[in-house]
């Protein structure tokens, strides 16, 4: 498919405006993803499994990572469970590998939990994700300065 675009008037002003939009979009996107990530964390924590032998370390470890933009332009916001925050506790108690613990709890849909459920992050993210386009639209400036 070929698209021909004719610009009447000041092309330089249009290009400058598009550039400003690009910068403004990045900032807005990071802000929106950061807020959405926080909301996903708030939704995920109550559904994170808490097992009898722990004190909710996995639940407490659910967190938002840093919003980053990679070279290709993709902006992403990780929502994480496990890892460093539960490492010390698991080392002390010795019966779980901390990183495996999180992935098993999240991915093993056959486990029965007295508190929480499998896919505790994924389900929260799927609830929040459809709201992101509207949030982004609202966050974008009409004409960035």
């Amino acid at each position: 498919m070929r698209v021909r675009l004719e610009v009447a008037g000041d092309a330089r002003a249009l290009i400058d405006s598009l550039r400003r939009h690009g910068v403004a979009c990045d900032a807005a996107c990071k802000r929106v993803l950061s807020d959405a990530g926080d909301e996903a964390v708030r939704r995920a924590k109550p559904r994170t499994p808490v097992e009898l032998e722990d004190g909710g370390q996995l639940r407490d470890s659910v967190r938002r990572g840093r919003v980053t933009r990679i070279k290709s332009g993709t902006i992403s916001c990780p929502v994480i469970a496990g890892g460093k925050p539960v490492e010390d506790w698991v080392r002390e108690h010795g019966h779980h590998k901390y990183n495996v613990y999180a992935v098993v709890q999240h991915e093993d849909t056959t486990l029965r939990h007295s508190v929480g459920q499998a896919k505790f992050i994924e389900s929260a993210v799927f609830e929040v994700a459809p709201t992101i386009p509207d949030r982004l639209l609202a966050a974008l400036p009409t004409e960035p300065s």
Partner: protein
Amino acid sequence: MLADEVCTYLAAAGLGLTQGTNLFTAPFPDGAPDTGACLIDTPGEKGEDVFGGSLSPEAVELPHFQVLVRAKDPAAARQLAWNVMKMLRNFQGTLSGVRYLRIERVSALPFFLKSDENHRYYYVGNYRAWKEESA
């Protein structure tokens, strides 16, 4: 429903899986063979309303599901998980009278999940289906 539709497909795919014997639409029941697979619905995404030729909205579901595979031999478990993935990914067609626009793998390739107290190794793969609503 999706689980029945996909299980019927997998049972006919020549993977050595027989529904009700070593292929299940729920977690492995007690006494199930060491080698087998189970398919479990997981929280999906909101469906989409698309417009067909008549401009009437046609609902598309986006259910997610997980195929959990196990075997005594870790290599066999991994191979079965990959064989299941090869049958499912990019599938387009009709299963039990329901149109599947596409089945796609979600995120990672099938990966090792755990081993249990009976020394069975579990691999898991996550999938998403774009499909017409089941009856």
